[in-house]
């Protein structure tokens, strides 16, 4: 009788061990599956579109030439409610200090996975032109 009980216990122990091993391995594999690419790309595409519109409608060039961030702010504030963005303009010789930065109103820079896109801007003054980098950082709005 004592022998029988021992065998049943060992059997149950092995079964449990097997169960946990398979459970752990399955959880590990499922844990490695990430679904962030589509969201990240969507964010990057939104950022690209926003910068393209800002350039095509002349807002970036006007903001630089007149030193008025409002040309950019007006557009940024009309972006979808779930999207936050910050647009910075850098002179070609100083990428450390932006000459202008606009943060969409109602947004906090509390992002974890932002999307950053750069675009060149040619600002013409008279018959000369200066070149700038416009950088947009976009992220999903976190409520609270």
């Amino acid at each position, binding site marked *: 009788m004592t022998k029988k009980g021992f065998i049943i216990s060992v059997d149950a122990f092995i*079964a449990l061990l*097997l*169960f946990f091993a*398979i459970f752990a*391995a*399955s*959880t590990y*594999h*499922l844990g*490695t*599956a*990430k*679904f*962030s*690419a*589509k969201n990240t*790309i969507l964010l*990057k*595409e939104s950022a*690209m579109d926003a910068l*393209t519109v800002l*350039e*095509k409608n002349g807002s970036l060039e006007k903001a630089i030439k007149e030193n008025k961030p409002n040309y950019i702010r007006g557009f940024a504030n009309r972006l979808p409610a779930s999207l936050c963005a910050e647009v910075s303009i850098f002179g*070609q*010789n100083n*990428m450390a200090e932006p000459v202008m930065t606009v943060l969409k109103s109602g947004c906090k820079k509390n992002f974890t996975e932002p999307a950053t*896109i*750069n*675009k*060149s*801007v*040619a600002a*013409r003054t008279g*018959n*000369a*032109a200066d*070149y700038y*980098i416009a*950088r947009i950082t976009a992220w999903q709005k976190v409520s609270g």
Partner: protein
Amino acid sequence: MAKGEWMKKGLVFSISTVLVASFILLFAAFYAQKVQAEENSVYKNFETEKAGFVAEDITGDINSILGTQIDANRSQTNLAISFFDQLPPKTAKNELTDYNAFVFGTYSVQQNAKISMNIDRLADGKTELLFSNGPQYDFDYSGTQNSASFYRQGTDTGTTGYDINVFVSGAKLASTNSFGWSCFASGTDVKLHFEDSFGNTIDSSCKHNPNILDQYIILFENKTGQITVNFGSVSSNPNAVKIQNTLQDTSVTAATAIKATMPAPAQEISWQYDADLNYSQGDTNISRKIELGRS
């Protein structure tokens, strides 16, 4: 039930459980791998999209610096190409050299890519815009040259009608000294409308022989130089147009619009600057002409 039968059943049950568990494990591994592959493919596609975005960005800037606006509309029967420009140009075209340095240095670093351009044939005093169906539009800004021309090298452009508009700002037409061109019974329809900022106008609309050079010379009061609208055999290229500004007062500007209408080619046409753009990031490589549009 006999003891042996119970053991047999237990063995079958255990094997089934192990099989099912193994299947779950394999499925989890397969699923994770599949998702990873999909993620990688999404990122890979984005690399191509970004390359296109950068190419568009650079093309837009070059077009903005050069200042030429082009509009081409192809219907079932006709192709109409319009060029809008200014003589002398709004932005000094040698700004392109600075832009090239900016792209190669600052912009490449920010895009984390290798970007280079060959703009030698744009920065040599003449910009050439090439159409896939043969004609080309040149803007000459070398030295004292200041002209815009539409032609096809060594052959007829195939244009059936031209609509040419010139608006001069800062100079008054001296109509008595200016002289026009000769009309023919057949040939290419050429309409010319000239206007200055003082409200003086010239209008001409008639047929011209596309194989003979005809010049409309427009002179201005108290200004040295002239605006010349050439039609016909321009530099031995028949059925071509060239607008030339030789006014020495550079504050006088001539806004020009040339619309050329011709039979529609069977295939889609594209137009591009005679300059090369090379982009390389990871496995994505682009090497192409600076293409402005298609119709």
